[in-house]
């Protein structure tokens, strides 16, 4: 049972060979007018949900058929504007659909690209120039106490009297013992003598 006899989508489905009723013919004419208005760019602001759905389907079918074309006047206007722009003539203000590209605007992408490249190059150079992790130890010798260093034996031996001029062996024993102490201490504290 149809819930709404006026709603053809919700109403009874007639057999294929059945003659259209006057109501159906009237509805078909109304919908045809609606389609014509839509194609002419005068789509009604209000319509029933069923009509809107059918209209969208009709629009899709027409676009898929590839027959959609601009109006002759509009098409001519766009082509003329494009040609004027191509020869460098001033485009009338009324032709607002085609935006002329100025000389400065034409260079903008190149300037941005070049600036980015320069920044990237500068960053790369700075990165390459940056000192890597460098462990620079101060000369260990400068921090070494004197008793760890190779040094003159004068303070240890002192003046050599004439009567001890030949006691080189005893003096060398003294020097050796002193240097051995320093050498052992240096090794024990982790130095690399």
């Amino acid at each position, binding site marked *: 049972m149809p819930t709404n006899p006026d709603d053809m989508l919700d109403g009874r489905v007639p057999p294929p060979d059945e003659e259209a009723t006057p109501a159906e013919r009237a509805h078909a004419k109304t919908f045809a007018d609606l389609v014509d208005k839509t194609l002419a760019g005068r789509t009604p602001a209000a319509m029933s949900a069923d009509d809107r759905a059918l209209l969208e389907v009709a629009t899709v079918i027409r676009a898929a058929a590839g027959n959609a074309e601009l109006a002759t006047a509009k098409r001519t206007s766009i082509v003329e504007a494009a040609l004027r722009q191509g020869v460098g003539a001033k485009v009338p203000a009324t032709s607002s659909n085609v935006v002329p590209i100025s000389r400065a605007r034409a260079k903008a992408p*190149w*300037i941005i690209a*070049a*600036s980015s*490249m*320069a920044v990237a*190059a*500068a960053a790369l*150079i700075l990165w*390459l*120039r*940056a*000192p*890597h*992790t*460098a*462990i*620079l*130890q*101060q*000369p*260990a*010798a400068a921090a*070494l106490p004197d008793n*760890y*260093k*190779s*040094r*003159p*034996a*004068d*303070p240890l*031996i*002192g*003046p*050599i009297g*004439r009567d001890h*001029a*030949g006691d*080189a*062996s005893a*003096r*060398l*024993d003294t*020097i*050796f013992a002193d*240097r*051995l102490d*320093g*050498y052992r201490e*240096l090794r024990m504290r982790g*130095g*690399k*003598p």
Partner: protein
Amino acid sequence: MKWIIALVLVLASCSCTEKSQPGNGSSVTQVTEPSDAIDQKLMIALSQAKNFHHKAKVYISDGDTAAAIASVREILSLQFPSGAPEGEDVRNDARALLARLLVGQHQLDEAMNVVKEGLGSATRESFFTANLYTVKGEIHEAYAQAAEATDPAKAKTERHAAIESFEASNKIDKKLQDQLMEHR
């Protein structure tokens, strides 16, 4: 556009210039080793010198002065670390002993050569060079003693030379002692 390219080139050239400077932003980890620390090489050389001295003492106590001289000469050929002050001190002390042994063998010219070699190769004044001057004075005394009977003039000259050597030794000793006192 050309200004941007020029800027990049300038930055790149600055980078290259600075990188070519040694020690600037070096990426090398540098661990400086103490070059004048007491090392194994020094200890080995000192130990060898000590052994030669002990050998010489034994030879001297046995009356074998020639062997003692040979043993002391071995010290002069030891390889000390380059620039080690102990090396110069030990060699000069060995020269002083060697010259004394040569004087005992009446080899005065050879003794004088040994002393002069030591004084000529010394890089600094030390108590050991002062000792060499002392031994040099002793050699001059030995020359004077030898010339006393035959050539009194030469003997006198040698005595003066001996005095000059002793004075040189004292001068060095005093200078070094003053320096040590200042440092204390």
